[in-house]
């Protein structure tokens, strides 16, 4: 079975631009979460979605948004990119109610 897949793997954008990151969860997993990992830090929670609804949100500005589709895949959108948005963006899926997260390999975003 395929694990969590994320696309693209790498992305370079300039300040002010918009970016969309994509995630496909493990088959059967209905919960998807997004994390931002800045170099030298641990992953920081951005959003959790299941059953297409936002179930949790971390301390991130409104420039960050996400959605989940009927097939449980998810998109993370970031508007008006700042230099500080440069990070590894990780998607994780899990069974609803399960504590164990399964992570994808991430999307490395560089904002110039």
């Amino acid at each position, binding site marked *: 079975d395929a694990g969590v897949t994320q696309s693209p793997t790498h992305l370079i954008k300039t300040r002010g631009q918009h970016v969309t990151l994509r995630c496909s969860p493990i088959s059967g997993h209905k919960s998807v979460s997004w994390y931002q990992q800045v170099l030298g*830090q*641990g*992953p*920081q929670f951005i959003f959790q979605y299941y059953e297409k609804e936002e179930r949790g949100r971390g301390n991130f500005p409104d420039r960050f948004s996400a959605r989940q589709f009927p097939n449980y895949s998810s998109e993370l959108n970031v508007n008006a990119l700042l230099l500080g948005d440069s990070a590894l963006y990780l998607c994780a899926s899990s069974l609803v109610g399960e*504590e*164990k*997260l*399964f*992570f994808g*390999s991430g999307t490395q975003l560089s904002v110039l």
Partner: protein
Amino acid sequence: DQQVKQNSPSLSVQEGRISILNCDYTNSMFDYFLWYKKYPAEGPTFLISISSIKDKNEDGRFTVFLNKSAKHLSLHIVPSQPGDSAVYFCAAQTNQFYFGTGTSLTVIP
């Protein structure tokens, strides 16, 4: 506000010896704790977990200890192997997951 802290950014251990990775937390409402391992260019992979109602959980070479009174969590790896060399993150859960900053473990052959 860092609710989960890993104060040792790096650790080196000889192959076959014990590796002890430590984690401290501040929120007494955390009800579940996990350890993840991360290799370069890969996402974190789940290693072992423990519920707040327990004080020890063992899985093969990996044991996690929880000291609730001290708000301290530790991961023991015995015996350490070169393939264990990676960055280890501890994580704690309430309504969301909080991760520490990671400890880079190097196991020397």
